[in-house]
């Protein structure tokens, strides 16, 4: 169905110098964002979306994917040199990266991290391509019944898995759902929760919401933390010949890299777990299966390799449910859905069927991005090591400016600015009280789809629930959802019970 020619063509398109320049721009920017502690992937993508308005749809998405990949690789640099992860998901990299750098081998640590990142990313991208393509032939089997069932399942799963308590997860999801229902009712056209604002008739505009809750709120949190911890010391790179990675040493870490990539890809394919979980799981497994577990945490290159390979493998794998079914499984995937929508493309199974060239060019672009990551990281080592010391009092105002400028570019006017600040406050409190961010955002993005599919199902079936018997896929997911909710409810009830039983004895 998808010809060899088409694949070659897509590669040719991705290797065009313009595409390379755009992807390189994305990777480079991502790398810098990753290196700077406090600036994270979600912030970067949220701010970058308005920048992509003037690009073609393909260039925009390739740029954003390059950006997202670059952050994962770049965050290792500050984890190793500064003991502060550039992304939360690189926390596991600190464990061995920082001790190794302190013992006079910073360059070696950085190179192990980089190679592990690139290999993890590349293999996971190939896996994504291999898994998503077969979806095209069955895509149309997923009608409104199936999609409604899968979306509900995904929401409950994310609420349960995103960490913290199940109830808080559900609450965050509920807030997302409520905000997602703002706007005109798809069936009757009645205005819901718009309070007379025409701007809200098509729903809460996604960009102000995302920039507010993610980027601006994060800056508020950073400001808060900046007051408390000032001045961490940066390790400088030496010119020591000893401090370089030999081929033998690299070969020694390869088995760890492959195993960790597998873990990362698995975690990524499940919605809601995210790269932090993947990195720590891979690190734990590498430590447990090592011959010398005691050397972990003291500068073992395998520790860095495990954390970084898995961290990077999660990202491409998290696009499997995105491109296969149109369901975003992570914050960055949810943001990509928004970016696709802005560029007039509906992400999902039909994309593969009707615009395979677009998807293939995207996949080739992702592979190109992996390669560029290696080049950027390898030759930019010294420069990025310096970027770690950009002080927050420069970063924070610049980011706030970019946030507000991004909203103005979109043409929402004063309404947009007010919305951004309202959501920044909202996001700040979400973070402070530890409500799951992924659950909130994914619920917000998914709600209109869910509502539409659910209503379609009810109308098409004439309200007859027996339709599920004709639709085995939908039925299976309904059963999964019920089991999942029961299991999560039961285990959090037991936790609560245990806490209560312990309380009087202590």
């Amino acid at each position, binding site marked *: 169905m998808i010809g060899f020619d088409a694949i070659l063509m897509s590669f040719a398109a991705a290797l065009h110098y313009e595409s390379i320049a755009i992807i390189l721009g994305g990777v480079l920017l991502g790398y810098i964002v990753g290196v700077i502690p406090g600036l994270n992937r979600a912030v970067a993508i949220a701010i970058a979306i308005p920048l992509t308005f003037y690009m073609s749809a393909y260039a925009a998405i390739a740029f954003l994917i390059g950006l997202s990949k670059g952050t994962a690789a770049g965050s290792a640099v500050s984890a190793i040199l500064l003991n502060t992860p550039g992304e939360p998901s690189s926390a596991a990299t600190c464990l061995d990266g920082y001790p190794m750098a302190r013992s006079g081998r910073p360059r070696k640590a950085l190179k192990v991290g980089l190679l592990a990142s690139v290999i993890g990313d590349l293999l996971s991208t190939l896996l994504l391509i291999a898994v998503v393509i077969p979806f095209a032939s069955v895509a149309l089997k997923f*009608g*409104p019944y199936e999609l409604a069932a899968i979306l509900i399942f995904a929401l409950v799963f994310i609420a349960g898995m995103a960490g913290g308590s199940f109830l808080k997860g559900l609450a965050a999801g509920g807030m997302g759902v409520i905000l997602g229902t703002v706007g005109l009712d798809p069936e009757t056209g009645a*205005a819901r929760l718009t309070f007379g604002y*025409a701007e809200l008739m098509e729903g809460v505009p996604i960009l102000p919401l995302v920039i507010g809750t993610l980027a601006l709120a994060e800056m508020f949190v950073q400001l808060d933390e900046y007051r408390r911890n000032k001045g961490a010391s940066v390790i400088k790179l030496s010119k020591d010949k000893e401090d370089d990675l030999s081929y033998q040493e690299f070969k020694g870490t390869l088995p760890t890299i492959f195993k960790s990539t597998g873990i990362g890809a698995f975690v990524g394919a499940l919605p809601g777990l995210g790269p932090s979980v993947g990195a720590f799981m891979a690190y734990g497994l590498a430590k447990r299966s090592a011959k010398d577990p005691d050397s972990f945490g003291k500068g073992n290159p395998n520790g860095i390799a495990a954390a970084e390979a898995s961290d990077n493998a999660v990202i491409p794998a998290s696009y499997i449910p995105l491109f296969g079914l149109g369901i975003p499984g992570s914050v960055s995937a949810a943001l990509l859905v928004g970016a696709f929508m802005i560029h007039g493309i509906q992400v999902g199974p039909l994309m593969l069927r009707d615009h395979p060239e677009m998807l293939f060019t995207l996949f080739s672009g992702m592979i190109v991005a992996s390669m560029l990551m290696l080049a950027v990281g390898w030759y930019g080592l010294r420069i990025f090591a310096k970027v770690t010391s950009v002080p927050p009092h420069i970063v924070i105002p610049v980011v706030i400016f970019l946030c507000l400028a991004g909203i103005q570019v979109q043409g929402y006017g004063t309404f947009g600015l007010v919305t951004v600040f309202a959501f920044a406050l909202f996001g700040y409190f979400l973070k402070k009280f530890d409500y799951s961010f992924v659950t909130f955002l994914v619920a917000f993005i998914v709600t209109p789809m869910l509502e539409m599919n659910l209503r*379609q199902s009810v109308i098409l079936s004439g309200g007859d629930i027996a339709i599920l018997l004709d639709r085995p896929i939908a039925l299976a997911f309904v059963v999964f959802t019920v089991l999942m909710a029961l299991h999560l409810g039961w285990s959090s009830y037991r936790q609560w019970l245990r806490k209560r039983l312990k309380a009087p004895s202590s």
Partner: protein
Amino acid sequence: MKMKLLGTAILSSAVAFGMAGMAQADEFPTKPLTMVVGFGAGGSTDIQARVLANVLEEELGQPVNVVNQPGAGGGVALARLANNRDEGYTFVFGTSMTITFGPLSSETDYELDDFRYVSGVTLGQSAIVTGEDRPFGDSWEELVEYARENPGVSYATQTALDRMIIEYIARQEGLELRIVPTSGGAGMAPLILSGDVDFGYSGGTHSGYADTGEMPVLMSLAEDRLVAFPDAPTLQEAGYDINAAEIRVVMVPKDVPDAHVERLAEALEAATQDERFIEITEERILMPVTYIPEDEVTQTLRDQVEGYKALIEELGGLPDEE
């Protein structure tokens, strides 16, 4: 210090007078123009608008900036334009449905008479479509017959307007339909292609399937038969007295001076003959380019509003008022 201040004052007033003098010479336009698009960046209106802006820039000799003001199906942009006082330097490029049916189906701060319609530049190609291998084939008559015998045939709607039309038809023909809401062409296409829904409304998505034949057209909602599907009858030919033709128009507030409107119209007429505009519209968006002068397009829009009002009355109010 004082001298300096005085100097600045004289200089700036001189500049201000100079500008005013230029404007009075009435060589409209003397400064950059703004083309407002009531939809987000990247949609078909936006893609077309950006090319149109480039062409107009050459015709008018001033930069034309495209600004997106999305919301309410283009309604937000019109509400702002209604209050605009800059004499034609800001105009909206949008679709006729926003101004004809918008004020009828929801509460808006504007109505048809708040604007002047400089000209129409493109004809919409909306249609009632179906999928392959349906029991009623791809003929409208057979669909009506089939639906009469099988209550519960499903129809995918996208807009309040097509919903009203199908409800009118259902009443005329005595059909019992299941009307399913979908979001845009991308939401409708999988339902029609998979056969989950029997037939539906399509704004332009069907043009993309013209070559493969996967989405046959049952009936044209444009004034004439569709370019890519000449076999399907129009609404009137099928026996329904409705004009729902969508036209892409350029609108300005009603008090813009005649001279400015004329200058804009001239430039737009030239743009409809420009290769670049024709290519993006007819080959990428797949809609025919045509130039409709102010009188004609205004009359058409007025007739449409009257037609819709009559239709709403006949149906006993809008669906959401029931």
